[in-house]
């Protein structure tokens, strides 16, 4: 699940503005939940570019080598819309399964134990 989210996040990041490799890596690394290795992002960027979801252009940097900026292509925008929709479906399905209103069996057992303890205490008193 987390793996597929990375693609969504990269496309989402680049929807806001074009960015270069190191910046993208650092922004993703800033979210520990993904546990992204720096070496994971570059092959993915290259793949997204090969699939036509990203395009690149070069821009001079004031302090270092020229940077290759990635930006979302029209195809990438469509893909991002699809991924977002898919994520919403997954997210709501997970919510529906985990955020149940009825008590779980563990909660039921705990409530029964509490009741028994209270009864025992009442009988002793």
């Amino acid at each position, binding site marked *: 699940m987390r793996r597929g*989210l990375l*693609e969504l996040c990269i496309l989402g990041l680049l929807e806001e503005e074009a960015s*270069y490799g190191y910046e993208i890596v650092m922004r993703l690394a800033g979210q520990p939940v993904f546990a992204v290795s720096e*070496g994971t992002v570059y092959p*993915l960027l290259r793949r997204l570019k090969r699939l036509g979801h990203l395009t690149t252009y*070069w821009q001079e940097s004031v302090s*270092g080598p020229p940077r*290759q900026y990635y930006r979302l292509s029209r195809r990438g925008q469509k893909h991002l819309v699809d991924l977002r929709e898919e994520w919403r479906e997954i997210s709501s399905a997970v919510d529906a399964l985990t955020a149940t209103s009825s008590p779980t069996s563990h909660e039921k057992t705990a409530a029964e134990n509490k009741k028994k303890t209270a009864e025992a205490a009442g009988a002793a008193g």
Partner: protein
Amino acid sequence: MSARHELSSLQHASRTMGFTGHEPLLDRYLTGLRKELQSWEISPTEIVEIVGEIERHVADAKQAGRTTAEVLGGLGSADELADAYGAALRMDLAEGRPSSWTRARAFSRRALVALSGSVVTAILTIVGLAALATGLVASVAAFVLPLVPSHLLEPTLRPGLPQLVVLLAGGALATLGLQLLRWRGVHRRLAHRLLARQERASIPKSTESFSKTTHSNVAHFPTSGSNGPSSRGSESGGIT
């Protein structure tokens, strides 16, 4: 990728060189990466681009105050990184999107087999037919010429060799001709089989490609499109 874009990428990649300085640790890493990438079917142009982007990553990280060892540690070992790039390429192959480099290589291999096959077939056909025709003519001549009065024949056509020798030589030539024509058929079948095998080899074995990814960085890599058709039919799959 257009030739102009490739040239631009290469120019920029080459301009990256030197920004990271000559550090033995980085040099060793990049040399290892280059070598590992070559073991995957990645084009030389793409290898230069990949090495350039890793070198730029290191340069950017160093500007941010990190050490080379730290950055390389974050990227993983050279072979893990190369495996991640290679596996990403394999995913495209598994989805039926071979790179232009792979397509060009497959095409040139098939063209070479087809061309060499045609040349050999043509040679076998010409030599075979010539040998068969000569052998038949010689055999017929061995029978006919002695029956023709010698004054009617041109001096060059007068038999100089014993009839039996000419007959045997003609028979041998005709047999050789027939054998060459038969080999032509065998060769043609072999060429077809070779082409078919190449065709099969160009179809990726998805199980093989993913067995390698599990040991690489791609264990954390989006598997878009690799887990079967997406319910949405998107370009490269979805969130799985």
